Protein backbone atom coordinates (compact mmCIF):
# COMPACT_ATOMS: atom_id res chain seq x y z
CA UNK A 1 0.00 0.00 0.00
CA UNK A 2 1.41 3.33 -0.99
CA UNK A 3 -1.10 5.45 0.87
CA UNK A 4 -1.45 5.48 4.63
CA UNK A 5 -5.16 5.50 5.10
CA UNK A 6 -6.53 4.72 8.61
CA UNK A 7 -9.61 3.03 7.21
CA UNK A 8 -7.50 0.79 5.01
CA UNK A 9 -5.28 0.01 7.98
CA UNK A 10 -8.28 -1.11 10.01
CA UNK A 11 -9.53 -3.19 7.12
CA UNK A 12 -6.14 -4.81 6.60
CA UNK A 13 -5.90 -5.70 10.26
CA UNK A 14 -9.42 -7.02 10.28
CA UNK A 15 -8.67 -9.35 7.39
CA UNK A 16 -5.48 -10.54 9.04
CA UNK A 17 -7.18 -11.13 12.39
CA UNK A 18 -9.94 -13.14 10.77
CA UNK A 19 -7.29 -15.14 8.92
CA UNK A 20 -5.41 -15.87 12.12
CA UNK A 21 -8.62 -16.90 13.88
CA UNK A 22 -9.53 -19.30 11.09
CA UNK A 23 -6.12 -20.94 11.31
CA UNK A 24 -5.73 -20.82 15.06
CA UNK A 25 -9.19 -21.80 16.27
CA UNK A 26 -8.93 -25.54 15.50
CA UNK A 27 -5.57 -25.64 17.24
CA UNK A 28 -7.03 -23.84 20.23
CA UNK A 29 -9.94 -26.26 20.24
CA UNK A 30 -7.55 -29.21 20.21
CA UNK A 31 -5.71 -27.74 23.15
CA UNK A 32 -8.93 -27.06 25.08
CA UNK A 33 -10.17 -30.55 24.41
CA UNK A 34 -6.92 -32.00 25.69
CA UNK A 35 -7.46 -30.31 29.06
CA UNK A 36 -10.83 -31.90 29.75
CA UNK A 37 -11.92 -35.43 30.49
CA UNK A 38 -13.43 -37.52 27.73
CA UNK A 39 -17.04 -37.31 29.02
CA UNK A 40 -16.78 -33.52 29.35
CA UNK A 41 -15.83 -33.20 25.67
CA UNK A 42 -18.75 -35.35 24.58
CA UNK A 43 -21.24 -32.94 26.14
CA UNK A 44 -22.99 -30.51 23.85
CA UNK A 45 -21.95 -27.80 23.61
CA UNK A 46 -18.31 -28.57 24.00
CA UNK A 47 -16.53 -26.39 26.58
CA UNK A 48 -14.53 -23.53 25.07
CA UNK A 49 -12.29 -22.76 28.03
CA UNK A 50 -9.40 -24.90 29.29
CA UNK A 51 -10.36 -27.42 31.94
CA UNK A 52 -8.50 -29.07 34.80
CA UNK A 53 -7.53 -32.36 33.24
CA UNK A 54 -4.33 -31.14 31.54
CA UNK A 55 -1.76 -33.29 33.34
CA UNK A 56 -3.94 -36.38 33.39
CA UNK A 57 -4.62 -36.20 29.62
CA UNK A 58 -1.02 -35.69 28.66
CA UNK A 59 0.23 -38.33 31.07
CA UNK A 60 -2.28 -40.76 29.67
CA UNK A 61 -1.21 -39.92 26.15
CA UNK A 62 2.51 -40.21 26.77
CA UNK A 63 2.22 -43.44 28.73
CA UNK A 64 -0.49 -44.87 26.54
CA UNK A 65 -2.98 -45.56 29.32
CA UNK A 66 -6.22 -44.20 28.01
CA UNK A 67 -9.14 -44.94 30.33
CA UNK A 68 -11.63 -46.21 27.81
CA UNK A 69 -9.50 -48.04 25.25
CA UNK A 70 -5.81 -48.84 25.74
CA UNK A 71 -3.73 -46.68 23.38
CA UNK A 72 -0.08 -47.15 22.46
CA UNK A 73 2.31 -44.83 24.35
CA UNK A 74 2.83 -41.54 22.51
CA UNK A 75 6.34 -41.14 23.93
CA UNK A 76 7.40 -44.14 21.87
CA UNK A 77 5.62 -42.76 18.78
CA UNK A 78 7.35 -39.41 19.15
CA UNK A 79 10.67 -41.19 19.32
CA UNK A 80 9.94 -43.22 16.20
CA UNK A 81 8.82 -40.04 14.42
CA UNK A 82 11.93 -38.18 15.48
CA UNK A 83 14.33 -40.91 14.36
CA UNK A 84 12.60 -41.40 11.01
CA UNK A 85 12.38 -37.65 10.40
CA UNK A 86 16.02 -37.10 11.25
CA UNK A 87 17.15 -39.93 8.96
CA UNK A 88 15.03 -38.51 6.14
CA UNK A 89 16.19 -34.93 6.69
CA UNK A 90 19.89 -35.59 7.15
CA UNK A 91 19.87 -38.22 4.41
CA UNK A 92 18.10 -35.96 1.94
CA UNK A 93 20.46 -33.07 2.60
CA UNK A 94 23.65 -35.11 2.39
CA UNK A 95 22.65 -37.00 -0.75
CA UNK A 96 21.38 -33.87 -2.47
CA UNK A 97 24.55 -31.94 -1.61
CA UNK A 98 26.69 -34.70 -3.06
CA UNK A 99 24.64 -35.21 -6.19
CA UNK A 100 24.44 -31.48 -6.87
CA UNK A 101 28.21 -31.31 -6.35
CA UNK A 102 28.70 -34.06 -8.92
CA UNK A 103 26.34 -32.53 -11.44
CA UNK A 104 27.79 -29.04 -11.20
CA UNK A 105 31.52 -29.62 -10.78
CA UNK A 106 32.35 -32.81 -12.63
CA UNK A 107 32.31 -33.44 -16.32
CA UNK A 108 31.33 -37.04 -16.84
CA UNK A 109 29.54 -38.78 -19.70
CA UNK A 110 25.78 -38.27 -19.69
CA UNK A 111 26.00 -35.62 -17.02
CA UNK A 112 23.00 -33.72 -18.30
CA UNK A 113 21.01 -36.92 -18.62
CA UNK A 114 21.75 -37.67 -14.97
CA UNK A 115 20.56 -34.27 -13.95
CA UNK A 116 17.36 -34.56 -15.92
CA UNK A 117 16.72 -38.05 -14.58
CA UNK A 118 16.98 -36.65 -11.08
CA UNK A 119 14.75 -33.81 -12.09
CA UNK A 120 12.13 -36.09 -13.60
CA UNK A 121 11.77 -37.96 -10.31
CA UNK A 122 10.02 -34.81 -9.11
CA UNK A 123 7.08 -36.13 -11.09
CA UNK A 124 7.12 -39.42 -9.19
CA UNK A 125 6.21 -38.76 -5.57
CA UNK A 126 5.90 -41.63 -3.11
CA UNK A 127 2.16 -41.93 -3.72
CA UNK A 128 2.71 -42.78 -7.38
CA UNK A 129 5.40 -45.38 -6.88
CA UNK A 130 4.06 -46.76 -3.63
CA UNK A 131 3.28 -50.22 -5.00
CA UNK A 132 6.73 -51.09 -6.37
CA UNK A 133 8.43 -49.33 -3.48
CA UNK A 134 6.50 -51.45 -1.01
CA UNK A 135 7.44 -54.57 -2.94
CA UNK A 136 11.14 -53.67 -2.79
CA UNK A 137 11.10 -52.74 0.89
CA UNK A 138 9.12 -55.84 1.80
CA UNK A 139 11.43 -58.13 -0.20
CA UNK A 140 14.42 -56.64 1.57
CA UNK A 141 12.75 -57.38 4.91
CA UNK A 142 12.68 -53.73 5.87
CA UNK A 143 9.03 -53.52 6.93
CA UNK A 144 8.83 -52.24 10.50
CA UNK A 145 12.37 -50.92 10.51
CA UNK A 146 13.58 -47.33 10.73
CA UNK A 147 15.43 -47.82 7.45
CA UNK A 148 12.34 -49.12 5.69
CA UNK A 149 10.33 -46.15 6.82
CA UNK A 150 12.89 -43.52 5.86
CA UNK A 151 15.10 -44.66 2.97
CA UNK A 152 12.40 -44.64 0.25
CA UNK A 153 11.69 -41.02 1.13
CA UNK A 154 15.28 -39.81 1.03
CA UNK A 155 15.92 -39.29 -2.68
CA UNK A 156 15.01 -35.69 -3.33
CA UNK A 157 15.02 -33.85 -6.60
CA UNK A 158 13.90 -30.62 -4.97
CA UNK A 159 16.90 -30.40 -2.70
CA UNK A 160 19.31 -31.47 -5.44
CA UNK A 161 17.91 -28.79 -7.69
CA UNK A 162 18.13 -26.13 -5.00
CA UNK A 163 21.77 -26.95 -4.23
CA UNK A 164 22.59 -27.07 -7.93
CA UNK A 165 21.21 -23.59 -8.38
CA UNK A 166 23.22 -22.38 -5.41
CA UNK A 167 26.45 -24.01 -6.59
CA UNK A 168 26.05 -22.39 -9.99
CA UNK A 169 26.23 -18.98 -8.31
CA UNK A 170 29.54 -19.77 -6.59
CA UNK A 171 32.20 -17.94 -8.64
CA UNK A 172 34.56 -20.09 -10.69
CA UNK A 173 37.53 -18.21 -9.29
CA UNK A 174 36.80 -19.71 -5.89
CA UNK A 175 37.15 -23.19 -7.35
CA UNK A 176 40.35 -22.15 -9.09
CA UNK A 177 41.79 -20.53 -5.98
CA UNK A 178 41.11 -23.75 -4.11
CA UNK A 179 42.79 -25.78 -6.85
CA UNK A 180 45.87 -23.58 -6.63
CA UNK A 181 45.80 -23.94 -2.85
CA UNK A 182 45.95 -27.67 -3.45
CA UNK A 183 42.46 -28.60 -2.27
CA UNK A 184 41.19 -31.78 -3.91
CA UNK A 185 37.51 -32.08 -4.87
CA UNK A 186 36.31 -33.48 -1.55
CA UNK A 187 38.42 -31.04 0.40
CA UNK A 188 36.89 -28.19 -1.61
CA UNK A 189 33.44 -29.63 -0.96
CA UNK A 190 34.00 -29.93 2.76
CA UNK A 191 35.97 -26.74 3.43
CA UNK A 192 34.34 -24.32 1.05
CA UNK A 193 31.14 -25.49 -0.61
CA UNK A 194 29.36 -26.86 2.47
CA UNK A 195 30.13 -23.85 4.71
CA UNK A 196 28.96 -21.54 1.94
CA UNK A 197 25.74 -23.54 1.65
CA UNK A 198 25.02 -23.29 5.38
CA UNK A 199 21.98 -21.07 5.01
CA UNK A 200 20.53 -23.16 2.21
CA UNK A 201 21.09 -26.26 4.30
CA UNK A 202 19.27 -24.66 7.22
CA UNK A 203 16.31 -23.71 5.05
CA UNK A 204 16.12 -27.21 3.63
CA UNK A 205 16.41 -28.71 7.08
CA UNK A 206 13.27 -26.89 8.17
CA UNK A 207 11.33 -27.83 5.04
CA UNK A 208 12.41 -31.45 5.07
CA UNK A 209 11.92 -31.86 8.79
CA UNK A 210 8.30 -30.85 8.44
CA UNK A 211 7.95 -33.00 5.34
CA UNK A 212 9.38 -36.01 7.16
CA UNK A 213 7.42 -35.45 10.32
CA UNK A 214 4.10 -35.15 8.49
CA UNK A 215 4.57 -38.32 6.42
CA UNK A 216 1.43 -40.37 6.71
CA UNK A 217 0.81 -42.69 3.78
CA UNK A 218 4.17 -44.41 3.60
CA UNK A 219 4.58 -45.14 7.33
CA UNK A 220 0.99 -46.33 7.36
CA UNK A 221 1.90 -49.25 5.12
CA UNK A 222 5.59 -49.63 6.02
CA UNK A 223 4.93 -49.90 9.75
CA UNK A 224 2.57 -52.68 10.75
CA UNK A 225 3.50 -53.21 14.35
CA UNK A 226 2.20 -50.80 16.95
CA UNK A 227 5.61 -49.96 18.42
CA UNK A 228 6.83 -48.66 15.06
CA UNK A 229 4.01 -46.18 14.47
CA UNK A 230 5.12 -42.62 14.06
CA UNK A 231 2.91 -40.19 15.90
CA UNK A 232 0.98 -38.99 12.85
CA UNK A 233 -0.11 -42.53 12.07
CA UNK A 234 -0.61 -43.17 15.78
CA UNK A 235 -3.30 -40.54 16.07
CA UNK A 236 -5.31 -42.20 13.35
CA UNK A 237 -4.98 -45.60 15.00
CA UNK A 238 -6.19 -44.16 18.32
CA UNK A 239 -9.41 -42.96 16.89
CA UNK A 240 -10.20 -46.49 15.86
CA UNK A 241 -13.18 -47.55 13.86
CA UNK A 242 -16.78 -48.43 14.35
CA UNK A 243 -18.64 -48.27 17.63
CA UNK A 244 -15.83 -48.26 20.16
CA UNK A 245 -15.70 -45.08 22.24
CA UNK A 246 -12.70 -42.73 21.83
CA UNK A 247 -10.61 -40.95 24.47
CA UNK A 248 -10.91 -37.62 22.73
CA UNK A 249 -8.89 -35.82 25.38
CA UNK A 250 -6.00 -38.24 24.88
CA UNK A 251 -6.27 -38.01 21.11
CA UNK A 252 -6.22 -34.21 21.28
CA UNK A 253 -3.27 -34.23 23.68
CA UNK A 254 -1.43 -36.44 21.18
CA UNK A 255 -2.30 -34.06 18.36
CA UNK A 256 -0.93 -31.12 20.32
CA UNK A 257 2.24 -33.08 21.11
CA UNK A 258 2.62 -34.02 17.46
CA UNK A 259 2.45 -30.37 16.46
CA UNK A 260 5.20 -29.31 18.83
CA UNK A 261 8.47 -30.52 17.22
CA UNK A 262 7.89 -28.94 13.78
CA UNK A 263 6.83 -25.73 15.53
CA UNK A 264 9.98 -25.77 17.64
CA UNK A 265 12.17 -26.37 14.59
CA UNK A 266 10.54 -23.51 12.71
CA UNK A 267 10.81 -21.09 15.61
CA UNK A 268 14.44 -21.94 16.37
CA UNK A 269 15.60 -21.86 12.77
CA UNK A 270 13.39 -19.06 11.53
CA UNK A 271 16.24 -16.60 11.12
CA UNK A 272 18.37 -19.02 9.13
CA UNK A 273 15.39 -20.21 7.19
CA UNK A 274 14.54 -16.76 5.88
CA UNK A 275 18.20 -16.03 5.19
CA UNK A 276 18.51 -19.24 3.23
CA UNK A 277 15.52 -18.46 1.07
CA UNK A 278 16.32 -14.84 0.26
CA UNK A 279 20.09 -15.30 0.62
CA UNK A 280 21.88 -12.05 0.01
CA UNK A 281 25.14 -12.87 1.72
CA UNK A 282 27.77 -14.13 -0.64
Amino acid at each position, binding site marked *: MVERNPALNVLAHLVMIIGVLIVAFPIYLAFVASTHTAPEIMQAPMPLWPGHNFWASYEAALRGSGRISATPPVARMMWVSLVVTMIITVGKISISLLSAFAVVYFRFPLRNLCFWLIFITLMLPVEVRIGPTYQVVADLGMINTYAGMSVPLIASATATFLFRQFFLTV*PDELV*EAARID*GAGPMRFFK*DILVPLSATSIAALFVIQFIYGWNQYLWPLIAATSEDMYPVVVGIKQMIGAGESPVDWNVVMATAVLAMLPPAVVVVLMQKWFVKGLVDTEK
Partner: protein
Amino acid sequence: MASISLRNVVKRYGHGPKANQVIHGVNAEIADGEFIVIVGPSGCGKSTLLRMVAGLEEISGGEIAIGARVVNQLEPAERDIAMVFQNYALYPHMSVFDNMAYGLKIAKVPVAEIKQRVDKAAGILELGHLLQRKPRELSGGQRQRVAMGRAIVRQPQVFLFDEPLSNLDAKLRSQTRLEIQKLHRELGITSLFVTHDQVEAMTLAQRMIVMNAGVMEQFGTPEEMYHRPASTFVASFIGSPSMNLLKHAPGTREGVITGIRPEHLDVRSEGWAVTVETTELLGAERLIYGRLGQGAGQEQLIVRIEEGAQVPAPGSVIHVAPREDRIHHFDATTGKRL
Protein backbone atom coordinates in the same frame (compact mmCIF):
# COMPACT_ATOMS: atom_id res chain seq x y z
CA MET B 1 62.40 -18.88 -7.80
CA ALA B 2 62.54 -20.02 -11.36
CA SER B 3 62.60 -19.11 -14.99
CA ILE B 4 59.60 -19.76 -17.22
CA SER B 5 59.77 -21.06 -20.77
CA LEU B 6 56.87 -20.90 -23.17
CA ARG B 7 57.64 -23.07 -26.19
CA ASN B 8 55.28 -22.77 -29.13
CA VAL B 9 52.29 -22.69 -26.79
CA VAL B 10 48.94 -23.25 -28.48
CA LYS B 11 45.42 -23.17 -27.10
CA ARG B 12 42.50 -24.68 -28.96
CA TYR B 13 38.92 -25.07 -27.82
CA GLY B 14 37.12 -28.06 -29.27
CA HIS B 15 38.53 -30.73 -31.55
CA GLY B 16 39.03 -31.40 -35.22
CA PRO B 17 38.22 -28.95 -37.99
CA LYS B 18 35.72 -27.04 -35.87
CA ALA B 19 38.34 -26.29 -33.21
CA ASN B 20 38.65 -22.67 -32.29
CA GLN B 21 42.28 -21.72 -31.87
CA VAL B 22 42.77 -18.76 -29.58
CA ILE B 23 46.53 -18.80 -29.02
CA HIS B 24 48.79 -19.34 -31.99
CA GLY B 25 52.19 -20.53 -30.85
CA VAL B 26 53.69 -18.23 -28.26
CA ASN B 27 57.42 -18.43 -27.56
CA ALA B 28 59.03 -16.65 -24.65
CA GLU B 29 61.93 -17.18 -22.30
CA ILE B 30 61.42 -15.46 -18.97
CA ALA B 31 64.43 -15.19 -16.71
CA ASP B 32 64.47 -15.95 -13.01
CA GLY B 33 63.18 -13.01 -10.97
CA GLU B 34 61.86 -11.01 -13.90
CA PHE B 35 58.65 -9.01 -13.75
CA ILE B 36 56.82 -9.64 -17.03
CA VAL B 37 53.60 -7.91 -18.01
CA ILE B 38 51.33 -9.43 -20.63
CA VAL B 39 49.22 -6.73 -22.18
CA GLY B 40 46.67 -6.57 -24.95
CA PRO B 41 43.07 -5.67 -25.71
CA SER B 42 40.30 -7.84 -24.28
CA GLY B 43 39.94 -11.16 -26.03
CA CYS B 44 43.56 -11.28 -27.18
CA GLY B 45 44.29 -14.42 -25.16
CA LYS B 46 46.45 -12.88 -22.46
CA SER B 47 44.41 -14.28 -19.57
CA THR B 48 44.21 -17.66 -21.27
CA LEU B 49 47.98 -17.71 -21.55
CA LEU B 50 48.34 -16.91 -17.86
CA ARG B 51 45.79 -19.55 -16.90
CA MET B 52 47.74 -22.09 -18.92
CA VAL B 53 50.83 -21.27 -16.91
CA ALA B 54 48.73 -21.62 -13.75
CA GLY B 55 47.34 -24.97 -14.86
CA LEU B 56 43.74 -23.83 -14.90
CA GLU B 57 43.54 -24.32 -18.67
CA GLU B 58 44.85 -27.32 -20.52
CA ILE B 59 47.73 -26.74 -22.90
CA SER B 60 46.63 -27.84 -26.38
CA GLY B 61 50.09 -27.70 -27.93
CA GLY B 62 53.66 -26.83 -27.09
CA GLU B 63 55.28 -26.80 -23.69
CA ILE B 64 55.39 -24.65 -20.60
CA ALA B 65 58.30 -25.14 -18.24
CA ILE B 66 58.77 -23.59 -14.82
CA GLY B 67 62.41 -23.89 -13.87
CA ALA B 68 63.65 -27.11 -15.41
CA ARG B 69 60.28 -28.85 -15.07
CA VAL B 70 57.80 -29.13 -17.91
CA VAL B 71 54.50 -28.54 -16.15
CA ASN B 72 52.01 -29.45 -18.90
CA GLN B 73 50.68 -32.43 -16.97
CA LEU B 74 50.92 -31.02 -13.45
CA GLU B 75 48.01 -29.88 -11.29
CA PRO B 76 48.03 -26.16 -10.34
CA ALA B 77 48.98 -27.01 -6.77
CA GLU B 78 52.03 -28.97 -7.93
CA ARG B 79 53.40 -26.20 -10.12
CA ASP B 80 54.64 -24.14 -7.21
CA ILE B 81 52.82 -21.00 -8.29
CA ALA B 82 50.51 -18.53 -6.61
CA MET B 83 47.83 -16.54 -8.34
CA VAL B 84 46.03 -13.29 -7.58
CA PHE B 85 42.62 -13.12 -9.24
CA GLN B 86 40.82 -10.13 -10.63
CA ASN B 87 37.97 -10.41 -8.13
CA TYR B 88 40.39 -11.70 -5.47
CA ALA B 89 38.51 -15.02 -5.00
CA LEU B 90 38.77 -14.91 -1.21
CA TYR B 91 36.88 -17.62 0.64
CA PRO B 92 33.93 -15.61 2.00
CA HIS B 93 33.35 -17.70 5.13
CA MET B 94 36.95 -17.71 6.32
CA SER B 95 38.79 -15.03 8.25
CA VAL B 96 41.70 -13.22 6.65
CA PHE B 97 44.10 -15.45 8.57
CA ASP B 98 42.37 -18.64 7.41
CA ASN B 99 42.24 -17.38 3.84
CA MET B 100 45.98 -16.91 3.83
CA ALA B 101 46.67 -20.10 5.76
CA TYR B 102 44.39 -22.42 3.78
CA GLY B 103 46.94 -23.52 1.19
CA LEU B 104 49.55 -24.15 3.87
CA LYS B 105 47.09 -26.15 5.97
CA ILE B 106 46.41 -28.42 3.01
CA ALA B 107 50.14 -28.76 2.42
CA LYS B 108 50.35 -29.87 6.08
CA VAL B 109 52.78 -27.15 7.09
CA PRO B 110 53.21 -27.18 10.92
CA VAL B 111 50.83 -24.81 12.72
CA ALA B 112 53.62 -22.70 14.22
CA GLU B 113 55.21 -22.14 10.83
CA ILE B 114 51.85 -21.24 9.26
CA LYS B 115 51.33 -18.62 11.91
CA GLN B 116 54.82 -17.24 11.47
CA ARG B 117 54.53 -17.05 7.68
CA VAL B 118 51.07 -15.46 7.77
CA ASP B 119 52.18 -12.94 10.36
CA LYS B 120 55.18 -12.03 8.25
CA ALA B 121 53.10 -11.56 5.10
CA ALA B 122 50.51 -9.60 7.07
CA GLY B 123 53.31 -7.38 8.33
CA ILE B 124 54.59 -6.68 4.83
CA LEU B 125 51.09 -5.86 3.60
CA GLU B 126 49.96 -4.03 6.76
CA LEU B 127 47.14 -6.47 7.37
CA GLY B 128 48.10 -7.31 10.96
CA HIS B 129 45.06 -5.74 12.58
CA LEU B 130 42.63 -7.32 10.10
CA LEU B 131 43.56 -10.98 10.49
CA GLN B 132 40.37 -11.96 12.31
CA ARG B 133 38.00 -10.13 9.94
CA LYS B 134 35.92 -11.75 7.23
CA PRO B 135 36.47 -10.64 3.61
CA ARG B 136 33.07 -8.92 3.46
CA GLU B 137 34.16 -6.58 6.26
CA LEU B 138 37.12 -5.32 4.23
CA SER B 139 37.41 -2.57 1.64
CA GLY B 140 38.38 -3.34 -1.95
CA GLY B 141 42.00 -2.38 -1.41
CA GLN B 142 42.25 -4.50 1.71
CA ARG B 143 40.77 -7.51 -0.05
CA GLN B 144 43.28 -7.03 -2.80
CA ARG B 145 46.09 -7.10 -0.25
CA VAL B 146 44.70 -10.25 1.35
CA ALA B 147 44.72 -11.88 -2.07
CA MET B 148 48.36 -10.90 -2.43
CA GLY B 149 49.07 -12.13 1.07
CA ARG B 150 47.58 -15.48 0.20
CA ALA B 151 50.01 -15.64 -2.70
CA ILE B 152 53.01 -14.54 -0.64
CA VAL B 153 52.63 -17.05 2.21
CA ARG B 154 52.96 -19.91 -0.23
CA GLN B 155 56.50 -18.76 -1.08
CA PRO B 156 56.03 -19.88 -4.66
CA GLN B 157 58.46 -19.98 -7.57
CA VAL B 158 56.18 -17.80 -9.65
CA PHE B 159 53.53 -15.16 -9.00
CA LEU B 160 50.68 -14.89 -11.46
CA PHE B 161 48.52 -11.77 -11.47
CA ASP B 162 45.29 -11.73 -13.47
CA GLU B 163 44.28 -8.05 -13.78
CA PRO B 164 44.46 -7.62 -10.02
CA LEU B 165 44.08 -3.85 -10.10
CA SER B 166 41.10 -3.44 -12.38
CA ASN B 167 38.57 -3.48 -9.53
CA LEU B 168 40.28 -0.65 -7.67
CA ASP B 169 39.68 3.06 -8.09
CA ALA B 170 42.29 5.13 -9.91
CA LYS B 171 44.10 6.43 -6.84
CA LEU B 172 44.28 3.08 -5.11
CA ARG B 173 45.43 1.53 -8.36
CA SER B 174 48.53 3.65 -8.71
CA GLN B 175 49.25 3.17 -5.01
CA THR B 176 48.94 -0.61 -5.30
CA ARG B 177 51.09 -0.54 -8.41
CA LEU B 178 53.91 0.95 -6.35
CA GLU B 179 53.34 -1.64 -3.64
CA ILE B 180 53.57 -4.48 -6.13
CA GLN B 181 56.82 -3.04 -7.45
CA LYS B 182 58.21 -2.76 -3.95
CA LEU B 183 57.12 -6.29 -3.17
CA HIS B 184 58.82 -7.59 -6.26
CA ARG B 185 62.04 -5.80 -5.36
CA GLU B 186 61.98 -7.31 -1.87
CA LEU B 187 60.98 -10.85 -2.76
CA GLY B 188 62.49 -11.09 -6.22
CA ILE B 189 60.00 -13.72 -7.33
CA THR B 190 59.41 -14.26 -11.04
CA SER B 191 56.09 -12.61 -11.85
CA LEU B 192 53.64 -12.70 -14.71
CA PHE B 193 51.16 -9.86 -14.67
CA VAL B 194 48.21 -9.63 -17.05
CA THR B 195 46.52 -6.33 -17.76
CA HIS B 196 44.69 -4.50 -20.52
CA ASP B 197 45.98 -1.15 -19.30
CA GLN B 198 49.11 -0.05 -21.15
CA VAL B 199 50.04 2.50 -18.47
CA GLU B 200 50.04 -0.26 -15.88
CA ALA B 201 52.12 -2.39 -18.25
CA MET B 202 54.68 0.33 -18.98
CA THR B 203 55.15 1.26 -15.32
CA LEU B 204 55.36 -2.24 -13.87
CA ALA B 205 57.14 -4.27 -16.50
CA GLN B 206 60.79 -5.08 -16.73
CA ARG B 207 59.88 -6.70 -20.00
CA MET B 208 56.46 -6.95 -21.53
CA ILE B 209 54.59 -9.12 -23.98
CA VAL B 210 52.09 -7.42 -26.27
CA MET B 211 49.41 -9.82 -27.46
CA ASN B 212 46.92 -9.34 -30.24
CA ALA B 213 44.37 -11.92 -31.39
CA GLY B 214 46.29 -14.81 -29.86
CA VAL B 215 49.61 -13.81 -31.37
CA MET B 216 52.58 -12.38 -29.52
CA GLU B 217 53.26 -9.10 -31.35
CA GLN B 218 56.37 -8.11 -29.46
CA PHE B 219 58.36 -9.16 -26.41
CA GLY B 220 60.73 -6.58 -24.97
CA THR B 221 61.36 -3.82 -22.50
CA PRO B 222 58.91 -0.91 -22.23
CA GLU B 223 61.60 1.30 -23.80
CA GLU B 224 61.86 -0.97 -26.85
CA MET B 225 58.08 -1.00 -27.16
CA TYR B 226 58.01 2.75 -27.14
CA HIS B 227 61.02 3.45 -29.30
CA ARG B 228 60.98 0.52 -31.68
CA PRO B 229 57.47 -0.92 -31.92
CA ALA B 230 57.57 -4.10 -33.98
CA SER B 231 54.23 -3.56 -35.68
CA THR B 232 51.51 -0.99 -36.21
CA PHE B 233 49.47 -2.76 -33.54
CA VAL B 234 52.13 -2.27 -30.89
CA ALA B 235 52.74 1.27 -32.13
CA SER B 236 49.12 2.24 -31.64
CA PHE B 237 48.62 0.25 -28.45
CA ILE B 238 51.62 1.53 -26.49
CA GLY B 239 51.84 5.21 -25.63
CA SER B 240 49.11 7.72 -24.91
CA PRO B 241 47.93 9.48 -26.98
CA SER B 242 48.67 6.77 -29.51
CA MET B 243 51.03 7.08 -32.44
CA ASN B 244 49.91 8.76 -35.66
CA LEU B 245 49.93 6.15 -38.41
CA LEU B 246 49.91 7.84 -41.81
CA LYS B 247 49.31 6.05 -45.10
CA HIS B 248 50.06 9.10 -47.21
CA ALA B 249 52.72 10.97 -45.30
CA PRO B 250 54.52 13.59 -47.40
CA GLY B 251 57.63 12.21 -49.03
CA THR B 252 56.99 8.47 -48.57
CA ARG B 253 56.13 5.89 -51.20
CA GLU B 254 52.88 3.92 -51.40
CA GLY B 255 52.71 0.76 -49.31
CA VAL B 256 54.58 2.24 -46.40
CA ILE B 257 52.93 3.44 -43.24
CA THR B 258 54.70 6.26 -41.50
CA GLY B 259 54.43 6.37 -37.72
CA ILE B 260 55.12 9.43 -35.65
CA ARG B 261 54.14 10.01 -32.03
CA PRO B 262 52.23 13.23 -31.21
CA GLU B 263 55.06 14.25 -28.88
CA HIS B 264 57.60 14.03 -31.71
CA LEU B 265 55.94 16.65 -33.88
CA ASP B 266 57.06 20.24 -33.47
CA VAL B 267 55.08 23.28 -34.56
CA ARG B 268 57.28 25.29 -36.93
CA SER B 269 56.89 28.03 -39.49
CA GLU B 270 57.07 25.47 -42.30
CA GLY B 271 56.62 21.71 -42.73
CA TRP B 272 53.51 19.56 -43.03
CA ALA B 273 50.41 21.74 -43.32
CA VAL B 274 47.77 20.68 -40.82
CA THR B 275 44.22 22.03 -40.60
CA VAL B 276 43.29 22.28 -36.92
CA GLU B 277 39.96 20.69 -35.95
CA THR B 278 39.94 20.86 -32.20
CA THR B 279 42.25 21.02 -29.21
CA GLU B 280 42.23 19.27 -25.82
CA LEU B 281 43.93 20.40 -22.62
CA LEU B 282 45.29 17.49 -20.58
CA GLY B 283 47.05 19.52 -17.90
CA ALA B 284 50.75 19.88 -18.60
CA GLU B 285 50.16 19.36 -22.29
CA ARG B 286 47.63 20.10 -24.97
CA LEU B 287 46.61 17.92 -27.92
CA ILE B 288 45.83 19.36 -31.31
CA TYR B 289 43.59 17.21 -33.50
CA GLY B 290 44.06 18.18 -37.11
CA ARG B 291 43.90 16.94 -40.71
CA LEU B 292 46.89 16.39 -42.91
CA GLY B 293 46.82 16.34 -46.69
CA GLN B 294 44.16 17.05 -49.27
CA GLY B 295 41.02 15.38 -50.60
CA ALA B 296 40.75 11.60 -50.33
CA GLY B 297 44.24 11.35 -48.91
CA GLN B 298 43.31 13.34 -45.81
CA GLU B 299 44.35 11.77 -42.54
CA GLN B 300 43.92 12.61 -38.89
CA LEU B 301 47.03 13.82 -37.11
CA ILE B 302 47.47 14.44 -33.40
CA VAL B 303 50.12 16.90 -32.27
CA ARG B 304 51.18 17.42 -28.69
CA ILE B 305 52.25 20.88 -27.56
CA GLU B 306 53.24 22.28 -24.19
CA GLU B 307 50.48 23.72 -22.06
CA GLY B 308 52.03 27.21 -22.24
CA ALA B 309 52.42 27.29 -26.02
CA GLN B 310 50.17 29.35 -28.28
CA VAL B 311 46.84 27.59 -29.00
CA PRO B 312 45.86 27.54 -32.67
CA ALA B 313 42.24 28.36 -33.45
CA PRO B 314 40.08 25.60 -34.97
CA GLY B 315 40.04 25.96 -38.75
CA SER B 316 43.45 27.59 -38.92
CA VAL B 317 46.38 25.93 -40.61
CA ILE B 318 49.60 25.21 -38.73
CA HIS B 319 52.86 23.67 -39.89
CA VAL B 320 54.49 20.79 -38.07
CA ALA B 321 57.81 19.07 -38.58
CA PRO B 322 58.48 15.50 -37.45
CA ARG B 323 61.76 14.74 -35.70
CA GLU B 324 63.56 12.68 -38.29
CA ASP B 325 65.05 10.15 -35.84
CA ARG B 326 61.61 9.46 -34.33
CA ILE B 327 59.89 8.44 -37.54
CA HIS B 328 58.87 4.77 -37.83
CA HIS B 329 58.11 2.91 -41.05
CA PHE B 330 55.80 -0.07 -41.31
CA ASP B 331 54.79 -2.31 -44.18
CA ALA B 332 51.22 -1.41 -45.10
CA THR B 333 50.15 -5.00 -45.82
CA THR B 334 51.78 -6.92 -42.96
CA GLY B 335 51.91 -4.07 -40.45
CA LYS B 336 55.46 -5.13 -39.58
CA ARG B 337 58.25 -2.70 -38.92
CA LEU B 338 60.50 -1.97 -41.90
